[in-house]
């Protein structure tokens, strides 16, 4: 277990290092960073001063070292557009992204799990067909389009919910449903096939033969075993929800990290963009790491292979 743990943590650190290197190389490949701050009317002294401030007079490996060191301390420089530290802007926006991710996760479990059980227990019933339809839409419709369609029906046509923003407590519903739908579909499919497998297994047959009630078989004997793949997937979902927010936040103008990243991208606000990407990757890698460790804890086969 210890060896696995060390390996896994090292891999996570290596991933972050590679991402920081990619960001560094790309920020240099994108052109002279001084152009972002200065224009043709700036004097030669301004250019020279900025060269020193940005450390561009040093060799590349030193520049990367400085960048890495600043990154570790959470110093990404000031956002060009807003003129204040990038980290400050990011920290302000984290609650919105977490709220959305949490609600989407709750939706995916609350919809996916019951539907998965019902469609497995009542195979071929109306519930099964409804479940399958939801799953098929969730896995085929592009997230951004689904969001726009939900917005069109529930905000523009029916006017039940606000179309965008985060001023109203009900505003989270549409983005959360949009973001969670794909994972609800995946949960449903996973649970359905796991339930079908378990329901067909010997120990369930034995339980039935012994006269355990129908509900007892479903809830106690089957569901507990069928939940294992769903739990694994739930972990994978968490990381993806954070990045899925890129698209959904843009569609619904939800003031979180995803929207910030896209805004920074199109405003050429490089310091801010670097910071957002590092924070996003950190969240994603941490989530994946936690899931793997939890999984290795639950399933000993993983850690010994």
């Amino acid at each position: 277990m210890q060896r696995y743990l060390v390996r896994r943590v090292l891999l996570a650190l290596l991933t972050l290092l590679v991402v920081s290197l990619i960001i560094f190389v790309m920020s240099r490949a994108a052109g002279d960073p001084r152009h972002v701050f200065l224009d043709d009317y700036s004097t030669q002294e301004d250019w020279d001063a900025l060269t020193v401030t940005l450390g561009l007079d040093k060799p590349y490996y030193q520049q990367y070292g400085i960048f890495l060191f600043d990154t570790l301390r959470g110093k990404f420089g000031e956002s060009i557009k807003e003129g204040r530290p990038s980290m400050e802007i990011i920290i302000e926006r984290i609650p919105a992204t977490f709220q959305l991710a949490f609600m989407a996760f709750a939706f995916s479990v609350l919809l996916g799990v019951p539907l998965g059980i019902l469609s497995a227990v009542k195979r071929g019933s109306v519930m099964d067909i409804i479940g399958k339809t939801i799953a098929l839409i969730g896995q085929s419709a592009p997230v951004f389009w689904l969001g726009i369609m939900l917005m069109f029906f529930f905000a523009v046509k029916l006017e039940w919910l606000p179309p965008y923003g985060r001023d109203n407590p009900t505003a989270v519903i549409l983005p959360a449903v949009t973001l969670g739908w794909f994972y609800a579909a995946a949960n449903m499919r996973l649970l359905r096939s796991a339930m079908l497998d378990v329901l067909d297994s010997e120990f369930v047959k034995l339980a039935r033969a012994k006269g355990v009630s129908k509900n007892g078989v479903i809830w106690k004997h089957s569901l507990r075993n069928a939940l294992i793949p769903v739990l694994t997937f739930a972990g994978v979902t968490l990381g993806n929800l954070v990045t899925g927010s890129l698209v959904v936040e843009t569609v619904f103008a939800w003031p979180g990290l995803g929207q910030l990243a896209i805004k920074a991208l199109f405003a050429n606000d490089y310091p801010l963009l670097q910071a957002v990407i590092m924070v996003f990757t950190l969240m994603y890698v941490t989530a994946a790491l936690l899931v793997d460790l939890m999984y290795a804890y639950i399933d000993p086969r993983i850690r010994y292979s």
Partner: protein
Amino acid sequence: MAEIGSRITIAQPSVGARIGKQLWAWRRLPLIPMFILAVFVATGLIAPLIAPHDPERGDIRARMVPPAWMEGGSTEYILGTDHLGRDMLSRVIYGARISLVVVAVTLGVGLVIGVIAGLLAGWYGRWIDELMMRIVDIKLAIPTILLALVLVLALGQSFLIIVAILAIAVWPRFARNTRGEVLQLKNMDYVSLAKVAGASTPRILFVHIFPGVVNTLIILASLEVGIVILLESTLSFLGAGVPPPTPAWGSMVADGRDRLAVAWWISTMPGIAIMMVVLAMNLFGDWLRDKLDPRLRQLE
């Protein structure tokens, strides 16, 4: 032996029964998904022949005309027009072409890189394997869309760069699965015999081992098509895909986003196209997997 064999007569089923059996064997063909995919591929291939209008040039007098079946619609623009008066149907048709090309090139490049990486890692093992698999791990640990956005911003927006980015996104899965298969195949007797017979390593890899991996690759590729289409359209939607005015489905959805209340069809039509193709491809891929190799169910 031959004598015994000749004395046994096997009842031949009648012709009718044989045809019936054939039909029975094909009963589970996913006909509707196959039809949708056929239409998609055909539309993409012959787009210039069937598109009624120029997809990139609009008639400024015919802006936001609703689809033909709605009030104010015209049969000249069956799916209506967008905010610049461009025919939606023609744009959807040309969009199919873009998606088709992107999918073909991306998967082609991703497959070649992934297969070579997987073959080498699985065959040579040791540090090559370790290196390749760590690269794969790292790649899978970085959120694709973010990576793509950074690359597009730094390198510029062009068709080639988009395809390169998508190929980077798809190759690790091919590599990982190829490697897994090679690990199993390389200990087979026939591979050892080929070695003894003096076959060169490239020959063993491509003539003896590669055919054993093809099934897995076909299935994986069919499941990746949907992923590539969704990725490409997401990038286009965010404004980091194939540059306008090229009619990519994702950017068409983005065009209609702020005009939902007045012209819902601008966003709706290309979205339906994406969904139909991805849905059909997923159903077809599932069928293919069950048909060729049910073990791969766990791939999901």
